[in-house]
């Protein structure tokens, strides 16, 4: 089974984790001014790249913390994991 490295607990089996979708989707600065279409984009529209993707993950069966990961959607390889208070790593 694939191992995912929790930034806190270290490598654990994939089944201990929950997927949380795309990372770094900022909450709208002035939500009251958004049109329905802009809301829909914020709530439902996500990138769907083939290759590197910054995602949110939750170590639900362990420490229950959220963290971010850069994962390759084509190979499923985790390139890096980082805490929520750490910046998105610059990938070459």
């Amino acid at each position: 089974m694939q191992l995912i490295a929790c930034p806190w607990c270290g490598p654990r089996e994939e089944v201990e984790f929950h997927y949380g979708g795309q990372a770094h989707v900022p909450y709208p600065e002035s939500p009251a001014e958004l049109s329905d279409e802009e809301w829909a984009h914020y709530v439902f529209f996500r990138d769907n790249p083939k290759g590197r993707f910054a995602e949110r993950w939750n170590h639900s069966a362990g420490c229950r913390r959220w963290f971010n990961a850069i994962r390759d959607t084509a190979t499923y390889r985790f390139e890096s994991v980082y805490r929520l208070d750490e910046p998105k790593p610059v990938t070459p």
Partner: protein
Amino acid sequence: MAELLRTHPLEGWRTAFERLPDTVRIAVEPFVAMVDVRLGTVGAEASAALGVDLPTAPNTWVPAGTGRAVWLGPDEWLLSSTTETPEELEARVRAAVVGLGGSATDVSAQRIGLRLTGARVRDVLAKGCSIDLHPRVFGRGSSAQTALGQAGVVLLALSDAADDVLVLVRSSFAGYLADWLLDAALEFTSTPND
């Protein structure tokens, strides 16, 4: 008024546990008071107020008075006490951390403890637990929140030889886990024909 007696969820498993060999002993721990602590920053002030240095290294536990302080997250710990009532422990811990912006919640009824001792404990646990329990990496003071079988557990290493492990499991999963452990220990149990 009729008094409600608290019964242990593993009352019915006692005889089965007693039949286990010395290489895999399972003892049901008595109820202890447990409090979940949330605290942003751990400093000297918190240690002084609580009387224990909360462990900041993930997957560790330290003795705390008559009980233990277990790391559950970067801002979360499980404190236990064998001499205080749940109410006393919660009140004491809350008084210590609330001024520092923390919180304390009594979770004594959430989990029960099963103490596994014997030379085969690691083999039994390895049947349903994916993390490395070798004494080299899981010596006394180590802990792990993970899954054992299908149940979420907190494992605490009480010895340096991986032959003494405390398993904390949610009360409602205790029966399932007890059955699972008995099944996992089956190959180490001698039958009357042996």
